[in-house]
């Protein structure tokens, strides 16, 4: 209590420093609290209540959890999400790493920046706009991809209409959107690795492949872990691209957890059930992130 009081009526230089520090982080704290923490707590509370918007809420214990977790549609959406995630994340991370390594070898800074900017461009496009662009690319009749297939003498493919192709097709969109962001992170990390390490490896007779495996990749570990976590989160929460292209179809083959959550909340008006799904998404991502952090994160110093 005394500490709090001293923040408002500082007596010493250190008090003033502490107060300044608090004031600096206050906007971020308020923003985080209002935009993230309050909805999170509300979601957790809401998942135990039957909520009637405009009416009264009723505590129902674990009933909503039981209902959501015994619903086959929910698990189908989870399976779709995981499948989409497994197709997107490894490809995005591996491709971004490969592109960053390629760009890092470019001697001209201008050329490197220009290429990096080109790769980054899709990331700056709105996700809905990206989805619409790809919807046209995938159009069975007028689409660019089927046009290319036609030129090669191949039959057109039902990219977004087929149960088998729809998720890989959407994964391509996700990779396209996210590649630039990951590339820029890897590129920055590569540029931060001191050249001495490579010189030392070269003197020791290491080949380029050995230098990549024994020097570059271990030193990129924090970035690889971080990018993988970010990609997992992005792909688990994917909504815009799927909603704008397939609306979860065909036959629910691309319905993700967040799409189902949206429908549950705003089409079926089951806010409690939607809160259960939100808690599930939060808990899953937290768990996966912690496990990944614990297993793969290595301390790196250079």
């Amino acid at each position: 209590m005394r500490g709090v009081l001293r923040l408002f009526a500082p007596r010493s230089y250190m008090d003033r420093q502490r107060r300044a520090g608090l004031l600096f982080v206050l906007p971020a704290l308020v923003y985080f609290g209002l935009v993230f923490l309050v909805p999170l707590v509300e979601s957790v509370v809401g998942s135990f209540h039957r909520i009637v918007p405009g009416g009264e809420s009723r505590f129902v214990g674990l009933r909503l959890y039981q209902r959501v977790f015994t619903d086959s549609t929910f698990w189908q959406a989870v399976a779709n999400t995981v499948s989409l995630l497994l197709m997107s994340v490894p490809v995005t991370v591996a491709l971004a790493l490969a592109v960053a390594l390629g760009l890092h070898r470019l001697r001209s800074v201008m050329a490197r920046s220009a290429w990096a900017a080109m790769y980054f461009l899709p990331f700056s496009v709105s996700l809905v706009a990206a989805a619409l662009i790809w919807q046209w690319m995938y159009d069975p009749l007028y689409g660019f991809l089927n046009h290319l297939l036609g030129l090669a003498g191949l039959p057109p493919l039902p990219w977004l209409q087929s149960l088998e192709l729809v998720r890989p097709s959407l994964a391509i969109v996700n990779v396209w959107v996210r590649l630039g962001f990951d590339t820029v992170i890897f590129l920055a990390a590569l540029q931060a690795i001191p050249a001495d390490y490579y010189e030392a490896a070269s003197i020791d007779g290491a080949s380029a492949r050995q230098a990549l495996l024994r020097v570059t990749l271990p030193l990129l570990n924090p970035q690889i872990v971080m990018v993988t976590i970010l990609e997992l989160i992005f792909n688990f929460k994917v909504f815009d691209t799927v909603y704008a292209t397939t609306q979860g179809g065909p036959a629910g083959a691309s319905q993700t957890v967040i799409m189902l959550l949206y429908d549950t909340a705003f089409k079926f008006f089951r806010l409690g059930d939607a809160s259960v799904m939100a808690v599930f998404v939060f808990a899953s991502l937290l768990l996966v992130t912690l496990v990944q952090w614990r297993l793969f994160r290595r301390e790196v110093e250079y």
Partner: protein
Amino acid sequence: MDGVRKLAATAGLVLAMVWAAAPTSAQPKKLIFWTHWEQNPEFNKYYETRGRDFAQKSGYEVQVVTIPYQGYEAKYLAALIGKSGAPDIFMGMTHHWCGQYDFCDRMPADLARTWDDHLPKYMVNVGKWKGVRYGTPIEHGNFQQMYLDVELFRKAGLDADKPPRTLDDWLAAMKKLTVLDAKGEPTQVGFALRHKGHPVGITDKFLPFAHAFGARMLSPTLETATGFANSPEMVAALGFYADLVHKHKVASLAFPTPEDAFGQKRAATIFRESWYFGWLKKNAPDVAFKVVALPCGKACPGAGALFPWTNMVYKSSANKAAAWDFIRFLSNPKDDLDQHQAQGILPVWTVNLDSPYVKARPDYASTQEMLRQPVPPEYYHPKSNELATAFGEAVVAALYGRGQPRPLLDEAAAKMDRILKD
């Protein structure tokens, strides 16, 4: 303490500026009208145009806010729960906003009587919840009719002036109208069906077939689905529907949306509502088409709507008396006709259904014929979206060969019963 004083002075200054910028009482009062009918801008503009006349006697102008249809429910819900920023009048479905929730003001009795007396019989329940009128219906002809491509009919040796009247005749015609490639896949289909998008829309497009087979999605009291959504008639209807794709190949899942396929002359028929011919004239003016009544099976599909759109007044609106006055101001045959004619859609009032404007429309005869048929089942249930989604998932699964109609419908009916009981 100097800092605190400075902070207080700044806060005071900001408050004074906000106060100065706030609207004064001299500005005209406004009724805020929310609609998600983004495809009908002229219809929406009419509210503002007539709102200016209304302002002369009431002091209230009308401001129309068009909410994009995609995700409109979320925006409505946030505003109606929050109260501040909510509309005075809003467009939607009565059984959702007045049934599942309690957001609607009850319509004054005299106005409710006026509407009851002037609606076609299939629309009398539109805008009502538990027998009480809350909303004014705004769309007639919101039931599917058959659009047929006259040229494709002629090429197939069929007479568009003698369209198929029964489902058997219709299927025979669809076979003649379908063109297959060397691999046996359709390059032109007899019928373009809805297989993409939200399951609610897929249910909506399948229901005329279900009704033609004498099936219904829910019990007449809307309390149970088992025995109805999975009845032998419904199983037969879904079997017939899936066979159009798999057995007869007169419809294709590789085709785009039905509207586009018909506009591209790649589909000879499509089932769509009255608004579609306006879309066709604008987007595919070279398509020569006719609009006819849907073919009948055991029963005729009849005129009914899964999406009964109405205008309602928000019960927490500070201007609800003025809002009802405005609706009363528009509740007459002339405004009904003028507003719908401005957009090229069908008016609602019975007295206008034989007006020169309506008689000159290509859907006049088909609409009249379908109005004469028995009114099909209505599903104005507060959870209609969720129920139609559960049902639509079975329909689309059958279309994509993910199962047989019987088990799919059994599963859907069980799920729908759980929804109904909850």
